[in-house]
Every structure is written in structure tokens, then in C-alpha cells.
């Protein structure tokens, strides 16, 4: 006897949506509206006071966006989700929901550059400080926890260096400290890894990347695991104490396993408002419909690229956890059995100049500041996505100037390799001239 609840691929297509409640429309309708009629004054008051569920204003919630939220919550195994205008706003909202002035967070040092700057420069303006720890330094996460630490934040596979956090061990450390773990799972998508099943408490995504997949739309989301007991200690007053903004409501008492999402929406969306447009939500939903088939191709192409790059004379090093000599190989086998993802970091012989020549001479691969497009993307992080980081922060992130970040697309692998050959040939020229 087994439950007949729908499985991953079915949820990708149907999750969160019932045509019978939407005029029989097979496709999810785009509710392009700002606001929603109230039945009467009593109904309006009940909605504003969280006595009843429903939509008030599209900054807070929207029926098209709701489908996306429920679909991603279902795919991640979460109790609830809140979609946002971008991945960055999802991270900001998560931290602002959890923390007060004077609080502290422990953060992996290998993150998307924008996230590093959020923790390094922007959150301190709100009195929230961060300690950065190298992703492989598990003991370092433990040592960095202070009395006022409110969470551990990281990417399972760090951007751009591809180093893994030992999540099972870090979850144990967080559990001992009584703090939640927030994982940015953009690189994995729930197809490859479900952080909540491994003990994380909140998952954030930039849906802009593999989830949407087509490089067309900005979107983010936070997903709640529902297992963290906010009431166990008095460490999380933002979740447990009466909140003046809703007549003394304690989110943890009233909403339990969805308290975090309810607070993030009721306070965060109300006061900060990084809402997702229904059009973009719809675009992301189109992408999610094919998530499994795309991820499978992304991963198989990535493995072929890893092999190609590892054997190339112009490549100094390759970082991808599928490589047997990678320090994270065993951990990746355990945590990522369906694939280690389509992000590859590699060093090009000849350093920064060779890197620039390579990037300027590939034609199929796109040089841009994104990852997780269906198309192959390349960038030189030290001069682009991570250029606003100082030398010390770059070093902590283990980033070198010869590093090229590759997001492998789903084109024919022979065409990607041929394109790279052109890039490497061009990259070798200045080096050959210099050697003469």
C-alpha cells in the first residue's frame, strides 16, 4: 500500500493548479490585475486581518503567482512558498524576516557575488552582520556561531568555484545551536537536490536560472520546510512575539509550520514589496514544465564538457564535483546522485589575458551575467559577476583571476566543443606570441 500523491514530473506540469477553478482553462491564466473585489466590508476586514485566505492586492499575492508558489513548494517538499521579483529579493526577505538589528548570520564565503555584497555591505547597514566561512571548512561554521547568530546561509555548490558545503554536518551544527539553515539551491533545482529532505529549514532560489530555464524572466522564491520549532527558545522574537502589525499576532503560534512564509508575506511583501509579476510567474511555470528533461540534458552535457576540458592542453584546472580527484567527489555522490549540475569552473592557461581572448572568441557560448539558461554561457567572474569584491573576499571565495565560469547549455555537445576549440585557439595566440 503506497500513497498515490503525484510524483515529481507530474507536479512539474500540474502542481498548484486546477482548471475546474479557472473556467476550464488548461493553461494557467495570467491574472494581470492589481487588486481583487471584496464581497463586503466584513470580507475585506477578514482578509486584511489574516482571518481568511484570499487575494487583496498583487503586491501581497496573485493567483498566477500562487500557482508557481504551490508548484515549487510541492517540488521542494515544502509547506509553503513565497515568490519574489528575483532570487536576491528572496534572500533579502528571508534574512529580514528572521533577523533584527544586532543579529548575526554565518555565511558560506562562496556565493554569487551579489549575495556576498548583500551580506558584506548592505545588511550591516541594517545592523545585521555576517561571518564568512569557506564552504569546505565545516568546523569553521561551528566556530563562527555566536550568541546572536540567527541562521547559517549557503549554496550547496558554491558560485563560482563549485566547492561543496557538507550539508549533513552543517545541519547537525545548526541543530545543536538551535538555528535554521537557509540554502540557496538555484544551482541544483529540486530535480537534483532537495535541501529540506537533508535538514535545511528554508530554501531560496533564483527561479531566473534553471527552474525557468530560458533566460527570459527574473524571479525568485523562498520555500519553508515547516519543521523548525520557533517556539522552542526565545531566540526568534520576530517569529514568536506578538506582532503589532497584526494586532498582537504571534506568527509561530498561529501558523506553526508555515509561520515563516506567512510572516515574510504579511510583513515583507507589505512593507518592502518585491513582488513577482504574474507574466513572469507564468513564464517560469512554462520552464518548470520541462525541468526534468532539461536538467537531465544539462547534466549529461556537463559531464561531457568536464571530460573535454580535463583533457585539454589549454586548461590548467577544472572544478566539478563529478571528477574523482575533486575533494567533494564522495560527498557529491551521496548528496547529488542524479548529477552534480551543469556549472563548471575552469582555469585557462595564460591567466586573465587568455581568459579574455577565450571569451571574446567563442561564438555559440554567450558571454553574459547569468547561469542556468538553456544556452551555454561563459563569464570571467573576477572581472564581472564578482568584480565588486575586494582581493581578500575573492581569496576567501577561492577565486583566481584565471577562472572561467561555464554554465553548460543543452545544445548539441559537438557544437559546444567546436565553439570552445575556437576560443582556446584564440586564447593561445597571445601566449604563443609572448613566448616567442
Amino acid at each position: 500500500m503506497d500513497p498515490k500523491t503525484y510524483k515529481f514530473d507530474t507536479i512539474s506540469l500540474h502542481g498548484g493548479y486546477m482548471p475546474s477553478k479557472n473556467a476550464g482553462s488548461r493553461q494557467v491564466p495570467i491574472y494581470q490585475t492589481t487588486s481583487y473585489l471584496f464581497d463586503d466590508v466584513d470580507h475585506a476586514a477578514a482578509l486584511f486581518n489574516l482571518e481568511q485566505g484570499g487575494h487583496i492586492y498583487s503586491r501581497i499575492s496573485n493567483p498566477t503567482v500562487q500557482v508557481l508558489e504551490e508548484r515549487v513548494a510541492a517540488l521542494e517538499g515544502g509547506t509553503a512558498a513565497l515568490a519574489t521579483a528575483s532570487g536576491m529579493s528572496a534572500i533579502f526577505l528571508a534574512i529580514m524576516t528572521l533577523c533584527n538589528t544586532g543579529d548575526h548570520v554565518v555565511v558560506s564565503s562562496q556565493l554569487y557575488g551579489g549575495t556576498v555584497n548583500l551580506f558584506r555591505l548592505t545588511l550591516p547597514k541594517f545592523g545585521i552582520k555576517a561571518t564568512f566561512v569557506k564552504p569546505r571548512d565545516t568546523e569553521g561554521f561551528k566556530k563562527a556561531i555566536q550568541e546572536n547568530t540567527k541562521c547559517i546561509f549557503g549554496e550547496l555548490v558554491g558560485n563560482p568555484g563549485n566547492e561543496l558545503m557538507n550539508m549533513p554536518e552543517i545541519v547537525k551544527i545548526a541543530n545543536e545551536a538551535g538555528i535554521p539553515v537557509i540554502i540557496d539551491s538555484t544551482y541544483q533545482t529540486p530535480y537534483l537536490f532537495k535541501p529540506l529532505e537533508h535538514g535545511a529549514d528554508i530554501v531560496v532560489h533564483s527561479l531566473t536560472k534553471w527552474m525557468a530555464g530560458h533566460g527570459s524572466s527574473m524571479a525568485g522564491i523562498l520555500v519553508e520546510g515547516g519543521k523548525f520549532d520557533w517556539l522552542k527558545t526565545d531566540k526568534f522574537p520576530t517569529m514568536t512575539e506578538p506582532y503589532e502589525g497584526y494586532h498582537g499576532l504571534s506568527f509561530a503560534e498561529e501558523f506553526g509550520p508555515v509561520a515563516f512564509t506567512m510572516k515574510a508575506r504579511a510583513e515583507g511583501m507589505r512593507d518592502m514589496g518585491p513582488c513577482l509579476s504574474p507574466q513572469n510567474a507564468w513564464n517560469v511555470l512554462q520552464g518548470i514544465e520541462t525541468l526534468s528533461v532539461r536538467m537531465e540534458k544539462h547534466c549529461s552535457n556537463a559531464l561531457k564538457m568536464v571530460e573535454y576540458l580535463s583533457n585539454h592542453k589549454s586548461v590548467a584546472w577544472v572544478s566539478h564535483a563529478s571528477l574523482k580527484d575533486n575533494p567533494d567527489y564522495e560527498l557529491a555522490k551521496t548528496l547529488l546522485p542524479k548529477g552534480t549540475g551543469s556549472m563548471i569552473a575552469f582555469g585557462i592557461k595564460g591567466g586573465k589575458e587568455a581568459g579574455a581572448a577565450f571569451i571574446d572568441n567563442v561564438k555559440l557560448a554567450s558571454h553574459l551575467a547569468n547561469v542556468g539558461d538553456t544556452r551555454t554561457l561563459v563569464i570571467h567572474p573576477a572581472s564581472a559577476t564578482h568584480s565588486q569584491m575586494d582581493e581578500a573576499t575573492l581569496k576567501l571565495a577561492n577565486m583566481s583571476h584565471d577562472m572561467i565560469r561555464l554554465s553548460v547549455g543543452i545544445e548539441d555537445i559537438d557544437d559546444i566543443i567546436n565553439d570552445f576549440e575556437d576560443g582556446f585557439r584564440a586564447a593561445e595566440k597571445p601566449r604563443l606570441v609572448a613566448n616567442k
Partner: protein
Amino acid sequence: MKFTVNKKEVFASTGGRPFDKKKPLIIFIHGSGLSHITWVLQTRYFAFHGYSVLAIDLPGHGYSEGPALESIEEQGKWIADVIDSVGVKEASLVGHSQGCLVVMECASQFPDKIRSIGLMGGAGAIPMNPELLELAEKGDPKAVDLMMDWAHGPAGHFGGHPVPGLHHINLGGSIVINGSVKNALGVDFRACDNYKNGFEAAKKIKCPAINILGDRDRMCPVKEGKKLADNIKDSEVEVIENCGHMILLEEAGKSLAILKKFIRNNHPVE
């Protein structure tokens, strides 16, 4: 709020308003393995409209001290003890699933304390599937998955939670998992399976009753709900279309509207 019943600490949500014993009291009683969280889309409304609300965590559930009570009869008696503990003479009771059995047992044992009863997915008996019962008593989380599968109608399986962003099945499952599958869900299922007094209790109920049913309910089907209502002297039945057993969440708005009308008529705010 936390208070003491029979020398044990009990937690109840008051719906976001302070408990006031001068106001008419409604006690909400959750289903097997669940907690006060399931009632959030009913309790806040009543709490902000003149009532005092206690969405209780039964002993051994949510934030209430254990152990879980092993029979429906004990649970019914315990609800009467809750009423006494908070210093109130009478209350209306609202139950879901197993909570309906508890409501009926309490209303039949203590008719003077109960003003009206609202049932959601109420049946005269809830015999358990033996395999499900065994899994729950062993503490196997598969019992939770099966329960969530059977308990939810189309909205649970596809989507469309009344509160944007919430996921029916994962939320319901996490409430149970956050408690104890073995010591709360297993004990509850056994209590339901053992309980044979439902129809006799129903015949003794003197107060007005309503049974709100879902036409897609596989755990307490409509015909069983109607059969129960036939045994209660002053009762009515409302059936909500395309709704499974988790009526209070799947069709929170419709079930609240029915409950509002019923309670306002039978236990009005003076």
C-alpha cells in the same frame, strides 16, 4: 495560551485575541495526529468577532503535555475539564474528524456544558485500515503520507490553498510529523478504531448540531455523515462539493461561512 488541565500543561491558540471568559466560548478540536494549526482559518474570525476561542492541542499533541489520551471517551471528558479549567460554564464545540467523535462524546456526557456542536467530516465511527493503523503505531512516517493522500480531495492533490502559497499535503503532513507519529497519530488511530459509542452518543445529544461534509471525502463519506446526523435530534447537514476530508482547509471559506451562520444562530454574542 498555556493553562493547566488535570495538573498538565495545555496549549491552545486563542485566535490572536486574549482569552476573555466573559465572551461566549468556542472550543475547536483537531483530528488525528494534528494540532491547533489546522483551525487557523476559522479561529481568527471568531476571535475577532466577539467570541473567545480555544483551538486546543489535545494532550500529547502540538504544545500540550503528554501522553496522548487513549480513548475517545477520555478525550470527551477531558474537553469538559478544559471548560471547567478556564472558568466557563458552557461552550460550543467544533471538531474535525476524530475531533467530531470527541465533540459528540463530550456533548453526550456533559449536555449542560455544551451549547452547540459543529462537526467537520463527522461520522458515527471511524474504523481504521489495519495496515495504516499498524504503520502509525510503529511510528512509520509512511502512515502520514497515506493519511495525507486519503484525507485530501482534488485541491490537496493539485493545488489552490485558500491562503496563497501554502501547500495542503505538505503542511498537513508536517503538522503530524512535527508531533509524534507513534505516540500521537498511532494512539489517535487506535482510539478511533476502538470507539464504538458514536451513534449512542449522538442519540443523547440535546444541543443543535451541524455536520459539514465534503462530497469527495474518502475517510468519512457523505453517507456516513448523514447517517450520523440522522441520529442527532436537532441536526443539519451541509455538503461542500469537490472537497475531501480536510474541509476546514480545503474549503476554509465555505466551511467558515456555514459555521458562522450556525454559531451565530445557536450561540450568539449578546
